[in-house]
């Protein structure tokens, strides 16, 4: 659009801009993943409620969920994983650390987060699989 002062303003691509560049696409996927984090949270709250009703209820709930909505679980799992990953890799920006006056290298901060994430996941996995068996 040509302005009165002669300058020309290029119209922004209001709806398709995020398809133009890898970095914009990755950002939009991160934003989209929030939706699945929401879905995951709702499932989790429902699961906790069922668990409070006893073991049989909970088992029925999980197997019904898997039998009918396995695809949703898979997609949710993938997006939640991406969500966590995408935030962990930007942690050095929000939480720059210094150790005796020197900046801690970003990869250490990211690596520490990733390792912590992995340990927590294994721990929870362990409780669920072994805890259920007892």
């Amino acid at each position, binding site marked *: 659009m*040509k*302005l009165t002062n*002669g*300058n*020309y*303003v*290029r119209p*922004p*691509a*209001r709806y398709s*801009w*995020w398809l*133009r*560049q890898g*970095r*914009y696409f990755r*950002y939009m996927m991160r*934003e989209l993943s929030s939706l699945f984090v929401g879905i995951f949270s709702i499932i989790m709250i429902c699961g906790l409620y069922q668990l409070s009703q006893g073991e049989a209820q909970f088992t029925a709930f999980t197997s019904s969920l898997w039998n009918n909505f396995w695809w949703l679980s898979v997609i949710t799992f993938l997006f939640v994983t991406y969500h966590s990953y995408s935030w962990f890799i*930007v942690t*050095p*920006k*929000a939480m*720059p650390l*210094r*150790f*005796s*006056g*020197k*900046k801690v290298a970003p990869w250490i901060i990211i690596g520490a987060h990733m390792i912590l994430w992995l340990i927590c996941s294994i721990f929870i996995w362990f409780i669920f699989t072994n805890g259920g068996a007892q």
Partner: protein
Amino acid sequence: MSDVKTSQKSVRQVEIEILRYNPDTDEKPYFQTYQVPCQEEWVILDAVNYIKDNLDRSLSYRWSCHMAVCGSCGMMVNGEPTLSCHAFVRDMPDKITIEPLENFPIARDLIVDMDGFVEKLSSVKPYINAAEEKTVEQGTYQQLPEQLQLYKQYTQCINCMLCYSACPQMALNDGFVGPAALALAHRYNLDSRDKGREVREDVVASNAGIWECSFVGACSEVCPKHVDPAAAIQQTKIAATGDYFKKFLMPWKNAQKGQAPEGGDQ
């Protein structure tokens, strides 16, 4: 030894397509194509200078230092915000498209209107705001190397505006104060000589300031000087949130003009 000592100057024919616009004669921009015999060691700016000197005297663009420090020659090169003196033709395909920086009005050809940008820089009060001004006779401030390191990265901005061009938030709202200006505010906030964080907060911690940023991170990816404005903005968000809660929880305590969150040594 390096290849510069042995290699011969080799020439490659490159097709360069440039978005042209002259408000005196054009209703809207259009592309014009040039065939440029590019030398191997050329940067994009050399190719544009070749066009200006040999093919088309009417092409307008800004440049000066040719060493990536004056910040004049930012352009979209194949869709990517680029400092044209800092990008080599040898890394480009045989066809190169050059446009003026996005998210700015085009004034003429590759020259964009940057008055809005300069106003935004100015709006964050980017100068030392000392509690009391020292006289020259009193000597310099003490500043330890680790205190300098805290903010030094954020002093490296050359105002090339690539980050404004890369920011999708800027495309949707041109009132956004933007990455470079917010990083500059952060630079002064982190400086041990400065006590002006509160004065800057009106602009910095407003809806048009840090809260307009949704952390796409594109600004930091395109920054030729590794300033990392995205980091500056996220850290400012944390500091501003801290201030808000401090005011909220301890209304009797005048919010302290402390340092931003970075910096605890151990």
